[in-house]
């Protein structure tokens, strides 16, 4: 499980926007990614080495400071947004 926090896009009044990316873990078979990979090959895209199908979430939240925003989003990921048994997540901060 990884959690990258890059530049925080701090908006007015302690508002933050996180983009959470959730992907199947590398060692876990990803049937959707595999199917899309096969389909790309069938329609003529050669050289596609890998497709992983994931999900993204935009989390707009209010927090006292960057540290609290980071902690809150991290907890959201671990408790609900991702299933750590089969998925990894990364967090990017974007400006609203």
């Amino acid at each position, binding site marked *: 499980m990884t959690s990258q926090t890059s530049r925080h896009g701090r908006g007015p009044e302690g508002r933050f926007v996180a983009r959470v990316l959730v992907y199947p873990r590398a060692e876990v078979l990803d049937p959707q990614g595999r199917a899309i990979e096969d389909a790309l090959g069938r329609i003529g895209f050669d050289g596609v080495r890998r497709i992983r199908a994931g999900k993204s979430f935009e989390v707009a939240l209010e927090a006292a400071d960057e540290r609290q925003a980071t902690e809150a989003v991290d907890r959201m990921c671990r408790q609900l947004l991702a*299933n750590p048994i*089969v998925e990894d997540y990364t967090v990017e901060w974007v400006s609203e």
Partner: protein
Amino acid sequence: MKCGIVVFPGSNCDHDVYHVLSHVLEQEATFLWHQGTSLEGCELVVLPGGFSYGDYLRAGSMAAHSPIMAAVRRHAEAGGRVLGICNGFQMLLETGLLPGAMRRNRDLRFLSVDVHLRVERDDLAWCSNYRRGDVLRMPVAHAEGNYVDTEGALDELERRGQVVFRYVDAAGRREPAANLNGSERAIAGICNAGGNVLGLMPHPERCAEEMLGNRDGLGLLAGAVAVGGRVGALAAAGG
């Protein structure tokens, strides 16, 4: 035995379970709304199949955080019986009451077919009407039933004997073709270390009456409500 069937938005096998427990097995059964916080004295709690919350995010993930799940967790941790069928099994994984996770089926298809299961444990109340090695026929209906965990966790599950049902062919052999959803180790159902929490993808409540052409599942639900020991009269249901 007083039985509670938890109803989530999107549950669709709740009435089937109620029917078998109440009318076929003549137990006291009641529905428990997911927003409630009490199990109302139920000794057996069933998390039924369906598509709770439309399977949003991951199957069972939203239901795992419903208010009633805190009470279900306390019941399970105190040794109370909890049975999760299909979507209910997915919820048990998402709550962590059972180990592992579900992926999309190997072939990405929604599977609605009869499968064969081999009974791997007969020392649990759930399986008191079956014998180890019995082959049961039960329907499955799911898109995310492809069980997975880390190799280490799977080894631990096997070592502790927590695999209760496996997908096999009609002769009881583990064949890749019989493991339709691609589950690791052909796992169809598992229990917790204490044996009081059971989750399985197949639907015993859909094959519990002779008039439906199959009652292989009746033994499981009868075992679930048996206070202890074997239920002799129903032993034949084990097929």
